[in-house]
């Protein structure tokens, strides 16, 4: 059963913690990313509101921290997310979670 990464992007502030902890965990060189924050906006909406969403997206280097999983740890991005808006689990578990609220996404970077 594949695992999945859940991100509640309503609360992702774009603080780079996931990117940097992943770089450190996998010892990636400069310019390399295991997870990359993509930003939509800021874009003005009609009623004086603003659209401004950050979505961390796992790259092809992401193996969902297989090594950490063996030692009973979460992936380093989930572990270090200051907004606790990242979760990890089986696709089944995360699909139940994702349905609980809007502005959520689950990624299956590797099967």
């Amino acid at each position, binding site marked *: 059963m594949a695992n999945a990464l859940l991100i509640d992007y309503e609360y992702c502030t774009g603080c780079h913690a996931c990117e940097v902890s992943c770089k450190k965990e996998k010892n990636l060189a*400069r310019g390399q990313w295991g997870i990359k924050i993509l930003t939509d906006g800021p874009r003005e909406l009609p009623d004086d509101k603003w659209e401004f969403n950050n979505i961390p997206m796992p790259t092809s280097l992401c193996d969902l921290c297989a090594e950490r999983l063996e030692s*009973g740890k*979460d992936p380093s991005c989930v572990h270090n997310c200051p907004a606790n808006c990242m979760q990890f689990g089986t696709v089944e578990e995360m699909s139940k979670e994702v349905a609980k609220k809007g502005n959520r996404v689950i990624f299956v970077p590797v099967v």
Partner: protein
Amino acid sequence: MTTDYYKKHWDEVEWQDGDYTVTRTTAWSAPGCHDGCGVLYYTKDGKLEKVEGDPKNPFNRGSLCMRCVMMPEVVNNPERLKKPLKRVGERGENKWEEISIDEALDIIEEKVRAIWRDYGPESIAVHIGTGRDNNDVIPRMAYCAFGTPNFSMGYLAGDSCFCPRSASMASTNGDFMIADMSQQFENRYDEKSTEWRCPEVIVNWGCNAVVSNSDNFFGHWIVDCMQRGAKMITIDPGLTWLAARSDYWLRVRPGTDCALAMAMIHVIAEEGLEDKDFVSKWCYGFDELVERCEPWTPERAAEVCWVDADKIREAARMYANANNAAIQWGLKVDQTTNATATANAINALWTITGNVDVPGGNIIIRNAFSQNLSYGYGWHSLSPEVQAKRLGSEFPLMSRAGYSSSAHADSVLKAIETSEPYPIRMVWMSATNPIANMGADAPRLYRALKTVDFVVVHDVSLTPTAVAFADLVIPAAMSPERNSQRCWWVPHRTMKKVCDSGECYSDTNIATLVGRRLKPENWPWEDEVGWINNILSTESDEKIPYRNFEDACKQVWAYPEFQYRKYEKGLLRFDGQPGFNTPTGRIELFNTNMMLWGYDPLPEHKEPSCSPVSNPELAEKYPLVLTTGARSFEFFHSEQRHAHLTSRELHPQPKVEMSVKAAADRGIKEGDWVWIENQRGRCRQIATISLALDDRVVRAEHGWWFPEAEAAEPNLFGVFNSNINNLTPQCENGDTGFGAPYANQLCEIYKCTEENSQDLPSTHVTRKDGYSKEMDETNGDVKVGVVYNG
């Protein structure tokens, strides 16, 4: 969360994980900020290899910001200082000779004793940056080793970081208030086992907490509260992530926060939304306050603050009508000459709405186990005559009231320039880099410090300040290289040393070494652990669960008991009576202390000295309102600037933000280097275009120097090239001595071309005597001279 790894080690503070040793402790700057997060250090044969957040620590619950995650890069940075250095070339030549710590201490001892003999201990000035290691250790060294009363921030004009707000709170409420995010409880956000309730509304007032993690406040707590239903109002000139998710974003003109607060008070009073019960029982001077705010209709504030009136009205209602609401405020309240008045006005907002010491409001907070060591630690070892000689003692709020007793930084600068009231012969700087970061009018500061006879710099790396002025440089130890203990509000924390500090010295170590050379009687311990044991046993109340460092390390942190509505239970006043620690026993909206010392007891808006309203002709030449120093995720002030660090990868160059129209009108495109200039000087940063900024406002970054660049003068790591403090003034403070206009100046911006970039600021300042300005004798301020001949 499959965290059984951490459940397995829940009760341990140190364990083996493969060939890693894992240590549960907390971190404190440097590197990184002063939030004291819980960390797990992974070390291998004494070298720090990885840092993780400690899921057990209630402060940050396992998460970390990127600054701690990248800590190993900074701790193991090959360019760090490793050995004490003695200057061999001229100041600025960057020529050093490695010496032993004993040789360094000999030089220091000899110098100090000579100053004692020829001048007097007060001729020594001691400075620290923003709360490094501990902010009580170096003050104690000043008082109890050098015997000088002159301890202050590193030329932070008007001490305008948290001191103005804390002085205002202390004089108005008798205590300090912070936004209630359940950080005072060990089980967080727990509405069953604690009285905590999630704030209905959170106001981000000039504070982008998720980025800044300011004053012991882990910004993402706000996101935790959002996830539990909190709505938000954000007051900020720029569209922050928090503003984009707020019900109201009040895009305020920099420097007009007081007017906005008074207009909100006006609305609350006019519509009778105040908490009548709380006001009548616990406030003093509500009528006077309402009368003072009477003319501040939202329409008038709209004019001043560039925010439309009905948004002000609706935001005030939303705040007042919430059954509990918390205000998280930041530096932009301090960084204006009207700082104390602005702080009083915002303090009044949570007061008249009854959000005082209530669950989910602004709670009264005190240091854990009343360990109140701060800038006053060791002050009473000085005789009254020496205490009276403190520079800036003419400002009562600073000295007599003992609120945050430090010398007045601007006065120290003038003393160096004029030797009035007495000369300054020696300057000690621990973990502060004034000409790069804190010091307004950096070129003036550069000229002044060059004249000081003997300068010691104690820091983690060779900074422009060290190269420009230091006769002696002592390498500072970083967080994982020192044993320490600390409380700032709560909890009480210990920091366990996990890797060898080599010849780097923690503040506690160097203070102890210097102290035992000069006044051994004041230093009855050998090393940092000895000092910690002294503090734990003598400077904390009896409720503290451990009395020595070894036991403390077993627990890592301890939370004191917390009660809401302490004023009702007589838990605030010395006499045990209900009420607040103020002359009237009430929150003094009409501030009797301030009246006593001849200050205006009520808040009032004052235009910044350089604004389109107060100075139209200056605005003719410099039409853009300039605010400075907005934080970024990647840096803690001027730290983490080395080119190979991940911080520089994510944030390679200094950026100034301007609106689409402002850029287009000047033919400027995204990514262009541009000059930012006003009547005092100029610097260059890279233009980034914002869709959301007011066309008349620009936001420049602070703290930029370039370790990869040439260290020796004239380049000096390019410290003046992008230094926004070329444009800010020293010695322009509020009448209380607090506050300085860092965040509300005027400027013009134009594209860098080959012609107009011949003479870069660093060369201009270090070779051509800075921006040509004459001193204005009358108030020690700088007359507005010829801008520059660049």
